[in-house]
């Protein structure tokens, strides 16, 4: 064998050997699990909601056998400590160290905004079933941030404002937590209500964690409102509803609320004082739809409580994304295709009981239900549909481009129509 031939054959053998050796690695890379980073507050002020995020999210993946698109799904849970700086830190760790394919979760708007700003730079897909800050899918849209299963803050307060007008209410007083989530929900309500001929007779902003609402309730009683719109989360919502009833206002002025005001996380422990509050949302746990009731039963059996917004929206968000992963056979590494597929995916069979789809800005379009808190057959209070608005997008009846020319809602800008 001359030298040249020797070199050639040896080279070929080596190359073939390398090919054979590397083949299993390639195959394994294909079948490697899809890694999802779930950030939920397990400590800090909203830890209870964080627990339900994890429950709802893992409930879906268990039911799906922890698989999607023919690949195993691995979920890495991190605690964002209800703090935006910690959330950023954890997002960095999930993306850079744990090498996750996508991020999910966060509860507080500030944590979500911080993480969104981080993924803007590196393109990691980030799904936010709870973060409602309007601008994330409007003026400051980020392509890889999608509100799967979530909603934008002002999206649901507009239908309930319209409903209130139809009931003949013309004078509304509003009481809300003084932060962006409250400003946005109240803005949606105030704009729709005043454009429809109503009048905002008072807006009361109280700090987060207000324990005594009596100064505000006194003023509310004095402004001669037909109806009151309340926007609180967590313990503030519980306290407001209780004090509204104990001040005797419950029998005088009907109470409307944002969807979080009568979420299960609030009314779960409450009695008759929360009865009859009207809110609007994409989901009503008391809806008489087979898909909804099946979900509520599964969740209640497992965690012995009726699912809240946090659990529900993470279940739906996971379901939505899983469907998209199935559609592309698990190839989530191609981010552009993955994100496009998620945006194109419709979800006909979710616990919502009605089909949902995304608009062009990564925010879902829902059939919004008007709900009223009522007692169920077990003596617990839950939200039951009493009306509906089909196909409500985050832009309501406005043209998106025109709408986004107005400033974002804030304390100073509530979209109130001048008369």
């Amino acid at each position, binding site marked *: 064998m001359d030298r040249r031939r020797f070199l050639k054959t040896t080279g070929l053998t080596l190359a073939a050997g390398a090919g054979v050796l590397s083949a299993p690695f390639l195959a394994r890379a294909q079948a490697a699990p899809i890694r999802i980073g779930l950030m939920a507050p397990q400590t800090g002020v909203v830890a209870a909601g964080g627990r339900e995020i994890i429950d709802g999210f893992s409930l879906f993946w268990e039911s799906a056998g922890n698989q999607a698109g023919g690949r195993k799904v691995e979920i890495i849970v991190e*605690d964002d400590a209800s703090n935006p700086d910690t959330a950023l830190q954890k997002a960095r760790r999930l993306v850079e160290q744990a090498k996750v394919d996508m991020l999910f979760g966060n509860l507080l708007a500030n944590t979500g905004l911080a993480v969104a*700003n981080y993924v803007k730079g590196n393109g990691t897909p980030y799904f936010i079933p709870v973060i409602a800050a309007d601008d994330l899918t409007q003026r400051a849209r980020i392509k890889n941030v999608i509100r799967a299963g979530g909603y934008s803050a002002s999206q649901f307060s507009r239908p309930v404002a319209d409903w209130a007008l139809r009931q003949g209410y013309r004078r509304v007083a509003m009481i809300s937590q003084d932060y962006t989530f409250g400003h946005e929900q109240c803005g949606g309500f105030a704009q729709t209500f005043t454009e429809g001929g109503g009048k905002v007779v008072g807006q009361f902003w109280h700090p987060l964690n207000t324990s005594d609402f009596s100064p505000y309730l006194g003023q509310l009683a004095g402004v001669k409102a037909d109806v009151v719109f309340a926007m609180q989360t967590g313990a503030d919502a519980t306290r407001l509803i209780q004090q509204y009833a104990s001040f005797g206002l419950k029998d005088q002025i009907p109470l409307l609320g944002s969807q979080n005001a009568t979420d299960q996380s609030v009314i779960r422990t409450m009695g008759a004082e929360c009865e009859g509050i009207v809110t609007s949302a994409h989901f009503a746990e008391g809806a008489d739809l087979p898909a909804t009731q099946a979900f509520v039963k599964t969740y209640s059996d497992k965690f012995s409580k009726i699912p809240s917004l946090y659990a529900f929206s993470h279940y739906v968000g996971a379901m939505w994304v899983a469907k998209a992963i199935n559609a592309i056979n698990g190839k989530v590494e191609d981010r552009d295709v993955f994100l496009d597929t998620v945006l194109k995916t419709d979800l006909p069979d979710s616990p919502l009981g009605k089909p949902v789809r995304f608009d062009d800005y990564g925010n879902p379009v829902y059939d919004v239900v008007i709900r009223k808190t009522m007692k169920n057959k077990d003596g617990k209070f839950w939200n039951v549909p009493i009306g509906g608005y089909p196909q409500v997008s985050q832009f309501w009846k406005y043209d998106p481009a025109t709408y986004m020319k107005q400033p974002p809602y804030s304390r100073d800008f509530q979209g109130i129509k001048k008369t």
Partner: protein
Amino acid sequence: MRSAPLTPVASSAARSLRQPRAVGWIALVLLALTVLPAVLPSYQVSVVTQVLIFSVLAMSIDILAGFAGRTSLGHGAIFGVSSYVAIYWTSTLGGDIWIGIALGILAATALAGVFAALAIRTSGVYFLLLTLALGMIVWGVCLRWTAVTGGENGLRGVGRPAFIADHASFYYAVLIIVAPLTWLMWRLVHSPFGLTLRGIRDSESRMRSLGYNVPLHLFVAFVLSGFLAGVAGGLYVLFNNFVSPSSVQLSQSVSALLMAITGGVGTLLGSFVGAAAIIVLENAVSAYTARWPSVLGIAFVLIMIFAPEGVVGRARLLFARRRSRYSKPDHPGG
């Protein structure tokens, strides 16, 4: 809070720096810091960067707590104001990031001047409470002045300039700023000015009767310390690209103070050990359990019981004791 753990053990520190061995150690640490990005994965490099930034903040507190005997709970606010100004300048006004950071540091220094003017005539728990209250005012403003600060949601930055965009080069940039700054501060606390501060810490009335202008010295120390906190805030903007009221709130001040205490108050370099210990612990423990704040809490309690002088302070004591034990027979004078 009692003042006993804040008693410094730095008396031998100035001397030990002049020894060739100490210089060797410092060179070794610098070398280790320099090669770090080559051996660590990029996420860990970002953690080390964070450690460096918070060391500067802890050091700024240590200058007051360890050398002037004034423990501040308002430095988180000074730090955060620097971040707010820098981000407001770049994101909202569309300005240049370096000018933004310079303005941020300037604002922090000015704010420290205001804090100092109000607080330096007090000491002990009154100083602690006054700085706490001043910090809370800043926090309240950041939370409620939504039009400027973005309220609860905070402000988002525009990102780092391209040449320091990746973790390794940003780490070097931070190191290049932090290392000389540390040396300067080391010189400062061991200068006559630093000695005067220590004199004030030990006995204010004695220094006054010796003819020192005590309030002026404290004012300058506070402003310098505020400048340092401002630098940390500016670097943090580049690191985090985001600021919210959580950056100015009390827990930020407390965690920086804990870093200084863990490392050893009055040791200056202990700030690095403290910041590293807390940030690394936070990262490592939170990967395993959701109860990580409890683990951190227990760690602090243990440190306070077994090493109230802090890690560096304790180590120095041990070294000093060993050295004196070995050297006694030869040099009875010590």
